[in-house]
Each structure stands twice: as C-alpha cells, then as structure tokens.
C-alpha cells in the first residue's frame, strides 16, 4: 500500500511508538493512581511526555501541557472556556468542524474570512480589519483539506495587540511546522497526537496559557477530598484515567520529531509534496489545488470523475487517500469545491520518492481509462 492519507492519521510511525505502547500495556498502571512501581512508571512516562511537548513548543512549564483524546477534545475545552453565546468569533475560511460545530452549538456569531485559497495576504488583511470587533479568534494553522498554511503568527500578533484571545488549531501543523506557543501568546493550541507528532490515535495535547474551566469533571488523583476540580493544571482538565499506552506512544513520537527537527521533517514533506504536485499537474482533466503556502496535503478534482469513486479506484490499486469534504465543509465552500468534494493526497516524512511517482502514475492510468 502507498499510504497518502497522513493528514487523517500518520499510519507510518517510528517503530519505537508501538514498542513503547506495548511496554506500557504490560508494565505500567495509571499516573496518580497509586504509589507502587507500576503507577510510578506510568507517572514518569506521562511527565516525560509533557516535558517533551513543552520543549517542542517552546514552553517553560510542562504542567501547561494537557493530555486530551484528540484535537477536537482540546478545541472543545478551549472554545467552551473562551466563547459565550452571541460572541463574535472570527475564523478563517478553512476551519474544520472541530472548530465550527462547537461554535454553532454555543450560539456564537461566526465571522468567516472568505479569502482565496493560498492567499495568505488576503487572509491577513481580513483578520486585520475584523479582529478589533471580535471577542475571540480561532484559526487553523494548516487547512486539512488543502494544505493551505494560514499566517497564524501574524494573526496572533494582531490578537495580542488588540487583546483578543486567540485559539490555534494545530491539527495539521504540530510536528510538521515550527510552533512557538510562548511567542504566539495564544490562549490555547490544540493538536492531535496521531498526525504529525507520530503518536497513536486517541491522543492529543492542549497547550494552555491560563487555567480554563473543565469540560469533564471527575477523579484526578489529587485533592480528592474536595468537591471541585483542582484549580491548577494539568489536573483541572484531566478527569478520569488517562490513555497511558497512547501517551507512551506519543512520547516516542515526540522524541522522534524533536530528534529529527521540524525543519528537517518539513523539508522532506515539502519535497515529496512538490514532487507529487508536479506529477499530478501533468495528468489530463485533473485540477490540482496548489499554491505557495502549502504544507503536507494537496487536493484534486477530476473532470467527470466523482471524488469518492476516484478515491475508491485508487484504494483498489493500493493508494490510500481521502475523498469528500474532509470534515471541513467551510473550507470547501471557501475554495469552491463544496459541491464536488476533492480527493486529498497527504504525505508523511516516511513516504518515498518511488511511492510518489508510482501513485501519480496510477492516478494517470485510472483517469486515462475513465
């Protein structure tokens, strides 16, 4: 199989990830739930994971790193803490349902930036104009559907200047692009563990500047005699037993990313993506959505070929991609692909040039006979 669906989940991972998970399953209990060796081993793993994440995202305090189930979980915490019903919330035109649905559920007044694909300047201009009227700003770092890299450093700077809370959706960028959480001054950054951080599914991180309201209430292994959740992080947001096996795997993913360096990983991904785009652009009747500010993923539409059918045909030929709206209907509306959907190809540093060449050739052959 040629796996080109890493924007959904990084199936290709360092071997240490799976090994650590199995070790944790066999030898580790739960952090904070006992003082015996198995519980303390678990505690060491969890703390090491917080430390590794804090170092990767330039944070001084590992206690500001909260474990979540996924990016969606983190975004729900961040949004519930920041947004009130009727509040004007400014978002990019490329947001995922992980942002949009919580906002709709809360009754926020959503203002989307309807700016063209890969036009970072236009996006920034829109944010510059509207941030002063916003109660909060939420922006994806990279569009999961198109790989469009939004100018989040500049947007965050505008938010700091205006005193508007900024929430970063780093679902597609964590591990792939450099993120300096301290410099951003964001209220929160949410990310999954199972994409660019190369950990397993069911893991995520929420980086917190302050101490938010909990989304879940329950046992934390601390201040158990009190009725309220502990007023400090990470305990305040980590009710219930943690996914320690997942955290053990995530720790190894983070170690890999830190060891290789995000710059090197991005360079590799960029080279693969550019190679793929070059090939796809030579395919007749294929529209390739490519631009300068692009990372990790490229979407295509084909004349006369339904995106789901094309993805299914690719799957039959051993190429794993994702078709449809990618849980980001807002992004597809903005890009003009809502009615058709797209086929998304997304790379990881573990893909090879040969795989890219072969996948493009398969696309070409399928469409030749469509």
């Amino acid at each position: 199989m040629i796996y080109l669906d890493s924007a959904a989940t990084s199936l290709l991972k360092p071997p240490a990830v799976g090994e650590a998970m199995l070790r944790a399953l066999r030898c580790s209990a739960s952090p904070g739930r006992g003082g015996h060796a198995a519980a303390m081993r678990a505690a060491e793993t969890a703390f090491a994971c917080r430390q590794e994440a804090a170092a990767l995202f330039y944070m001084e305090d590992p206690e500001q790193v909260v474990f979540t189930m996924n990016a969606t979980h983190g975004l729900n915490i961040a949004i519930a803490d920041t947004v009130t019903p009727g509040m004007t919330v400014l978002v990019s035109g490329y947001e995922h349902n992980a942002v949009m649905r919580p906002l709709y559920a809360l009754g926020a007044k959503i203002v989307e930036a309807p700016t063209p694909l890969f036009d970072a300047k236009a996006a920034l201009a829109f944010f510059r104009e509207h941030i002063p009227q916003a109660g909060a700003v939420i922006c994806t770092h990279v569009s999961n559907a198109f790989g469009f890299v939004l100018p989040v450093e500049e947007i965050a700077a505008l938010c700091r200047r205006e005193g508007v809370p900024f929430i970063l959706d780093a679902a597609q960028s964590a591990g792939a692009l450099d993120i300096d959480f301290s410099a951003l001054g964001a209220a929160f950054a949410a990310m999954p563990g199972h994409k660019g951080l190369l950990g397993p599914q069911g893991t995520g991180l929420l980086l917190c500047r302050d101490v938010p309201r909990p989304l879940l209430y329950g046992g934390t292994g601390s201040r158990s005699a009190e009725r309220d959740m502990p007023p400090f992080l990470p305990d305040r947001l980590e009710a219930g037993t943690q996914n320690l096996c997942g955290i053990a795997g995530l720790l190894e993913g983070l170690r890999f990313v830190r060891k290789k360096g995000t710059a090197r990983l991005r360079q590799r991904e960029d080279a693969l993506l550019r190679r793929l785009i070059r090939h796809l652009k030579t395919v007749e009747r294929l529209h390739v959505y490519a631009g300068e500010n692009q990372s990790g993923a490229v979407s295509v539409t084909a004349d006369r070929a339904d995106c789901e059918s094309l993805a299914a045909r690719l799957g039959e030929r051993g190429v794993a991609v994702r078709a449809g709206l990618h849980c980001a209907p807002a992004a597809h509306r903005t890009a003009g692909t809502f009615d058709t959907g797209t086929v998304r190809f997304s790379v990881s540093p573990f893909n090879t040039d040969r795989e890219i060449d072969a996948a493009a050739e398969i696309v070409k052959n399928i469409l030749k006979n469509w």
Partner: protein
Amino acid sequence: MSALILFRSLSRAQQGVRSLSLGGVPAQVMRAPRAVSERGCAFAAGMGEKWLDEALAVLSRAGVGHEGAFLSRPDGTWEEAAR
C-alpha cells in the same frame, strides 16, 4: 528520620523532584501520607532529613511551589517541619 515536601499534584511533585535532582538533592516522588494531605490524595518528594533545608532552598530558587514540609517521628507519624 526522613523528610518529605508536599506538593499540590503529581506533576508538581515531579517538577520538584526534577529540580532537586538538578540541584544535587536525592529525592523521589512518593504518595503523601494521608495525615499530611488534608485535601485528599497528594504527592510529595521524599528524602533523608539532612537534605530538607537544602531541598527547600533549591525549590525556592527554581520557583517550584510546595504545600509544606514534614519530618517523620520515631513512632511513624509526621510533624510539620518548623522552618
């Protein structure tokens, strides 16, 4: 005789022990005795009594907050260290 420094949470105790280790103080994370953790489950840094003063100084320098220091009595109970 042994001593312990009480922390608000497991992760804070881990931060504390990490700072102590960097400061040359041997200590380990342990569950706090119920008698010293009025608010319920808590974690502490355990160490030999002779290290307590130095440990508190290291934590102060590192900016790692704690919730009290205790010494063991010969009968196995704990008393707050008068510091």
